């Protein structure tokens, strides 16, 4: 079952994809697989920025907007067509290809809050978050996981909906999230890739000891 947002987005982007620039990806693409709709927005040569849309409230958050214009275009379209509200700009780490669009996005959408790692400088930050901190985007719960190494302050964001409890600790069983379209989502930035992990630009081991002390 696809939400209204999903149906309209899917049609529009499949059509408009033909016209967009030749790039490593021709058009933003929607995924309705998990507990929220996610629009994948290609940036630069191989970056992905993501727009998370809560199906229940139409509140949205953009993750790692390395540049603003492609995001502005999509958000404006969805504001008109779906009454989408951009509530947050989430930043996993300080690298420019992940935060370069922050200032312009905030200027264009003044009610959107920049929420990012509290362990290193993030441009235009409103709310620095640390390991274990959580916040809401509409009915979605977002949990912060500190994963230093690629940068000393890198975090990941783990997203669940009210219908999927946040299994932050505890045993893992496959298939524990039973309902279709309700799987949780992990925004892993440059820490975990499909088939790889980020380069160790700023790992020191000291971060590991500090967090282990705080989590234990």
């Amino acid at each position: 079952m696809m939400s209204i947002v999903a149906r309209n987005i899917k049609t529009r982007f499949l059509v408009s994809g033909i016209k967009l620039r030749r790039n490593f990806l021709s058009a933003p693409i929607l995924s309705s697989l998990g507990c929220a709709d996610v629009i994948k927005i290609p940036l630069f040569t191989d970056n992905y920025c993501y727009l998370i849309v809560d199906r229940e409230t139409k509140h949205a958050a953009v993750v790692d907007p390395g540049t603003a214009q492609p995001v502005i275009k999509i958000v404006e379209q969805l504001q008109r067509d779906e009454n989408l509200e951009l509530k947050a700009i989430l930043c996993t780490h300080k690298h420019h290809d992940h935060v370069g669009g922050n200032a312009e996005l905030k200027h264009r959408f003044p009610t959107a809050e920049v929420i990012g790692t509290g362990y290193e400088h993030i441009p235009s930050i409103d709310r620095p978050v640390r390991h274990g901190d959580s916040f809401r985007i509409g009915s979605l719960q977002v949990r912060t996981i500190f994963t230093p190494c690629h940068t000393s302050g890198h975090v990941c964001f783990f997203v669940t909906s009210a219908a999927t409890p946040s299994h932050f600790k505890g045993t893992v069983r496959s298939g524990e999230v039973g309902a279709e379209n309700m799987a949780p989502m992990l925004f892993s930035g440059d820490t975990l890739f499909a088939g790889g992990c980020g380069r160790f630009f700023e790992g020191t081991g000291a971060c590991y000891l500090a967090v282990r002390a705080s989590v234990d």
Partner: protein
Amino acid sequence: MTCVYVCMCARAAEDMLRNMDLLLALPQSSHVYFGHEYTLSNLEFLCSLAPRISSPPLQLSLETYLMRAKVLRQDSVPTAPSTLADEMAYNLFVKCREAEVQRMVGCEGDPVATMQALRELKNSF
């Protein structure tokens, strides 16, 4: 200086190993949305280690995921999202605590050294 450099690299590998432990404790069904389309080159690197792999299931997993990535990228389709279950099946960087992966890089019994060795091999691939 060499000792300091090696020590710092090992400590960075400790950080990344701990990151993988934390992320892999999340539900396996979690969809993983990552920051870059590196999947095909990541898989090409992992498959280059094939001569070192003794387990047929792991070899088959790698070949299957490589083929899947090639098909997707031929049409410029994003390989994101993956799932944690998928990554646990074939991503050697999240399997550094497994004896087979440690043996592949000559670091049996040492998950930190395994992570470091894999990263260095990838850096020079």
